[in-house]
């Protein structure tokens, strides 16, 4: 199964990618398992999602958390706390 991942703002700059397709291993993936997979890629992702780093996640454009399940075709976005207004 593949999902679309989007990165915004400081998190996008940290990983150097704005969007990508990622293949997930079989099972019952969640945001947590996806983040573990990304962290294992290389230093940029390890750093971006290091313990103590604050980030937010949405799944299909709704705010989510690490326990949120992910289905094939989902749009998962990672970003820093928001600062609009």
């Amino acid at each position, binding site marked *: 199964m593949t999902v679309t991942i*989007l990165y*915004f*703002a*400081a998190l996008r*700059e940290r990983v150097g990618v704005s969007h990508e397709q990622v293949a997930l291993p079989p099972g019952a993936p969640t945001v947590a398992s996806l983040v573990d997979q990304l962290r294992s890629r290389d230093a940029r992702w390890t750093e971006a999602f290091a313990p103590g780093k*604050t980030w937010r996640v*949405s799944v299909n*454009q*709704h*705010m989510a958390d690490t326990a949120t399940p992910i289905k094939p075709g989902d749009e998962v*976005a990672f*970003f*820093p*706390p*928001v*600062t*609009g*207004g």
Partner: protein
Amino acid sequence: MPTVRVQQADFDTGRELETLTRGRVDVGAVASFVGLVRDANDGHAIRGMTLEHYPGMTEKALEAIVAEAHGRWDLVDTLVIHRVGALAPGERIVLVGVASAHRGEAFAACEFIMDYLKTRAPFWKREDTPEGSRWVDARASDDAAAGRWD
């Protein structure tokens, strides 16, 4: 009918607020807020800023915030316009307008929408300073302001 817009272009505050009351005689109160770019923030000089957003989700988030406000208070109409892209000091960033029969509800809903927008709508500011550009950190005071409405 609530209006939510995310746009690069500036807006005409007076003309936008007019749409909340035009042809109506049941609105007694319009509370509004305009946010603008300042030339300084946390002691840093600001030459300008760039606002990034998450197209699609941002509009959904704003619509959800407005719907929440209409659920909490008896409102006639609501307006949220938020700009994105490059903005110079003095430029408008956001307009929130709320029309209601009575002022208490209009004020509360307008402040509520701003507090939730600040903490729940996916916008990110990058400021240009003489030392380079930097992403603005989220503020604990904004979380506290949003928490008042729990």
